């Protein structure tokens, strides 16, 4: 017969309140983490999702792809650096656009279909294969829609949608590099040449991207090489956003664990008489500890289920202006972490149980 379950059924209010409190805290952790991921991803998703080992910017760009201007020839210069396997140009600019009937800002990314630097995260349709085609993340567009860039009047036909690939939280359109160049020229008539913003490079088998990036910095004048991870981490504001959310999530998490730990400690102290009696009539410490662990597990799992429902509702109901989605790995990771740390906090109670002297159950002492 289950001691743990019977007690919980007999003390529904008590365990219900605890489960409610824990579910709100788990909900906060899930929501904050999801929002933080969504925010960061909308800012850096484009760069993070590029299928390349590293990127090269102009020195003057100070680690920022948007501020970087390079002549197209840099692509060949980078390709000549030992350890570099393949290179391709990447161009990007921000433009006004008419998108799904509304005037808005979009970010345009041009890449070479044959080289590194293509986007990932294709959600539906396909990537562009011909001039004037685009795959878009955000802005509420669907396949077959037209995006017209203003000024310049370049018309892009949406042939696919991508997810998690926005830049600066703007709807982002991925086009072939030639389409990009044509659009730049259309918007800036009389431009002597169309610059690219970055060179994407893949390293040869077995080479370390960071080391090759350093070699590029050394051997090509006026440029700085970055592994993709370095480039993403250097996007302005990302570190402070991640840190702020991290502190909030961490605090909420810790509060949740402390609530669970102390609740069960109080419960255990209140039940000391019953536990002592149980030890006296031959119940092992392990069994009593197991029943506390079982109750903690039950509370955390039920609370997590409630929190998950709340988070799903919130993600659907909240209009945050950025694409938000709940990642299963995040959910599972959070629940497992809450469970593990709650059980650790339960050791406070179990220590008390282990110290029980069964002899004190006898008589009126």
């Amino acid at each position: 017969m289950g001691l743990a379950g019977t007690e919980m059924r007999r003390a529904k209010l008590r365990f219900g309140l605890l489960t409610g409190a824990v579910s709100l805290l788990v909900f906060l952790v899930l929501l904050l983490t999801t929002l933080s991921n969504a925010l960061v991803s909308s800012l850096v998703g484009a760069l993070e999702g590029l299928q390349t080992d590293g990127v090269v910017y102009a020195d003057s760009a100070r680690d920022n792809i948007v501020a970087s201007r390079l002549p197209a020839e840099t692509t060949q210069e980078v390709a000549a650096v030992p350890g570099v396997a393949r290179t391709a140009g990447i161009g990007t600019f921000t433009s006004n656009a008419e998108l799904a009937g509304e005037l808005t800002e979009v970010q345009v990314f041009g890449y070479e279909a044959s080289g590194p630097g293509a986007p990932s995260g294709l959600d539906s349709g396909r990537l562009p294969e011909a001039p004037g085609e685009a795959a878009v993340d955000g802005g509420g567009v669907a396949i077959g829609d037209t995006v017209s860039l203003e000024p310049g009047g370049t018309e892009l036909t949406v042939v696919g949608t991508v997810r998690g690939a926005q830049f600066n939280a703007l709807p982002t359109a991925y086009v072939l590099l030639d389409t990009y160049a044509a659009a730049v020229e259309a918007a800036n008539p009389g431009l002597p040449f169309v610059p690219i913003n970055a060179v994407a490079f893949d390293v040869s088998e077995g080479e370390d991207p960071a080391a090759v990036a350093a070699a590029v910095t050394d051997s090509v004048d006026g440029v700085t090489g970055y592994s993709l991870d370095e480039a993403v981490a250097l996007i302005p504001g990302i570190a402070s956003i991640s840190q702020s959310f991290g502190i909030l999530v961490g605090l909420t998490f810790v509060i949740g664990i402390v609530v669970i730990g102390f609740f069960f400690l109080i419960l255990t102290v209140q039940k000391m008489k019953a536990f002592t009696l149980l030890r006296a009539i031959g119940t092992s410490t392990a069994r009593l500890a197991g029943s506390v662990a079982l109750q903690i597990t039950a509370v955390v799992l039920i609370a997590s289920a409630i929190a998950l429902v709340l988070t799903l509702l919130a993600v659907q109901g909240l209009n945050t202006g950025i694409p938000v989605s709940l990642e299963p790995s995040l959910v599972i990771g959070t629940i497992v972490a809450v469970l593990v740390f709650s059980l650790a906090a339960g050791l406070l109670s179990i220590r008390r149980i282990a110290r029980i002297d069964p002899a004190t159950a006898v008589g009126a002492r």
Partner: protein
Amino acid sequence: MTDPANDPVLDATRSALDGPGASPADDAAGHPSALLHVNDVRKVYGSGHTEVVAVSDATMAVDEGEFVALLGPSGSGKTTLISIIGGLLAPSSGRVTVGDVDVTAMNKKELTAFRAERVGFVFQSANLVPFLTARENLLFVSSLVKGISRTQANERADQLLSELGLSARAKNLPEQLSGGERQRVAIGRALMNDPDLVLVDEPTAALDTAMGRQVVELLRREIKARGKTGIMVTHDLRMVEYTDRVFEILDGHLTHVEQPSAIGH
């Protein structure tokens, strides 16, 4: 000191005397095949100037199927002695054997199993798990031992509850029961695992006289009906009439073994 076994006058007339019976140590010598043997058990609490000798040189023997009383005033060491016998407390020295097992040689884990399998306890108060019903309090202890099926346990619990007049209260929580009903549930709990020894510490302390008598009478009936061996601690002279023999204890010393009829008249 006179050894009553060697004193034909005292021995022959003992039952007629309204005086001290044999010393428990001498009595024990006459019960070599008893179920329970307590040999030179001593218990000292604390140390230095806070030292309390709660039990000293206790020797006694209880035969299988006997229901005996351990009678003495408050503070005389009754609870200490019965706790040592039941494997709840380790003596400072001495030996306790139940059948062929040496209780005083067991480690903590073995003692826990010993208490679950071979001892049934009825304590003075706070006897039941508050969040389990009367029936669940009985069923729980059967989960502490291996080899009892659910059906067997259910049958046994219902049988005991019915014998104890508690069938109608089976689904009640302890807080919904009277003091006497709670002690009856505890008796059922103590008998649930078919123990060798039933140890009862002042079962009537929280009850009025009539209720106390009823509980002790039931206790005797159940112990006798099942052929169990029982020791009941009490300081109440009126309760000893339900027992077979009475061990008297004073200031930690077992002094005499008496027939119940020799006491309280």
